[in-house]
């Protein structure tokens, strides 16, 4: 009897999200974005959220819709501005949303550190730039480094490809992106998957996220992915 719970309804899986929660949301643009879970989060009514995600929403679905509905007080991300980030752009320009901009690798490493029990780390990325202003710096082996702190979530929403009934996960291609590190960095991790398979169906050598990091699994039939536009943004 593992502790993972398989929930059929995305809204039910995130219904207990409190106002003010820090929510880690996987995905790089649309790839790996847990759209159905985010729609469940909108249904939950939770507001004043801090959202940690690489981007700040694409088009009108998923994270973009959460922002449009005014649920996000603060975005921590590396690349908010994209050709289809109009929901974010509007809220940001209206001053209704704070932005903490973090270089993508520091964002990933801060999330990884939270899951790994590392309090903080010295990274060369960003040294000498405006994004390191006010931060502690140190020269290590002749190179400038910036001190960055772990970034943990109350809730992580992740899209994986397949889960077994214990919650072991595998991903598909570049949709893996932030999923494994976010799953490890949150108090509660909810994962949407294309399918749930029997225990033993995933080779132990191929598991990417061990079940210890997963609290709830929601099988979903993915809605049509937004059109992949050319040359948008990183």
């Amino acid at each position, binding site marked *: 009897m593992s502790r993972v719970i398989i929930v059929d309804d995305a809204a039910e899986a995130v219904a207990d999200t409190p106002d003010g929660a820090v929510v880690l949301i996987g995905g790089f643009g649309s*790839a790996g974005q847990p759209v159905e879970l985010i729609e469940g989060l909108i249904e939950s009514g939770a507001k004043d959220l801090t959202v940690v995600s690489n981007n700040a929403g694409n088009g009108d679905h998923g994270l973009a819709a959460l922002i449009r509905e005014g649920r996000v007080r603060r975005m921590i991300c590396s690349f908010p501005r994209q050709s289809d980030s109009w929901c974010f752009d509007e809220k940001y320009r209206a001053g209704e949303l704070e932005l903490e*901009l973090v270089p993508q690798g520091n964002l990933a490493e801060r999330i990884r550190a939270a899951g790994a029990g590392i309090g903080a780390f010295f990274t060369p990325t*960003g040294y*000498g730039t405006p994004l390191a202003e006010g931060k502690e710096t140190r020269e290590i082996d002749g190179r400038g480094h910036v001190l960055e702190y772990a970034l943990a979530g109350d809730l992580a929403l992740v899209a994986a490809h397949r889960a077994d009934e214990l919650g072991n996960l595998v991903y598909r291609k570049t949709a893996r992106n932030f999923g494994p590190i976010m799953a490890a960095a949150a108090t509660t991790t909810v994962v949407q998957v294309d399918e749930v398979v029997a225990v033993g169906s995933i080779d132990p050598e191929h598991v990417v996220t061990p079940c210890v990091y997963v609290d709830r699994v929601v099988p979903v039939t993915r809605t049509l992915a937004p059109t992949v*536009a050319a040359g948008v943004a990183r």
Partner: protein
Amino acid sequence: MTTTSSTSALPTGIDRDALARQVAADIPAGSFVNLGIGLPTKVANFLAPDSGVMLHTENGMLGMGPEARAEEVDPDLVNAGKVAVSELPGASYFHHADSFAMMRGGHLDICVLGAYQVSARGDLANWHTGRPDDIPAVGGAMDLAIGARQTFVMMNLLSRDGRAKLVPECTYPLTGLQCVSRVYTDLAVFLIEPEGVVVRDLFGIEYDDLTALVDVPLVDGTGR
């Protein structure tokens, strides 16, 4: 920054494809390379198929192939620009922390980036205009700039208003300090070396005319 518009018509050098071909020709066979979004992406079109150059994309893949044809488009397989791409034999996938570890740890031989400005000592500015109405976005630019063993910049030498983007000191917000090793432009290729900025190639411009355009001391390396 004062306007230093040139008195004559702007010179025309090589076009974007020819510039991409120049960069591609300088990438050793078997290199591990990250091509930034925009202009650098074009370099992939000029890498010899048998060069064995492996492309890294920071969203978690090594061994990236060309843009996907319509029937191949897979929403789970995109590049850093979120464009659908393909997978080559020998590819591998990994999560974001591992992907940036690969970059930051100095395992990529070369990354090629666009730029607003490059300074004479190799400082790079390419992520933010600094205009107050701009929404800032950095993505992986800072990690790439300092992570690869060599950072190549590709850009037009002159901005639209005719000012050189190779500058004594960057005035735009910085992406990284002393990280650029080469600057490929439509008019010249510059090597940022301990002795200074060396001009390696000229494209449709004389050396003396180039020095008049650029407010940085140059070393003529065209005859080397």
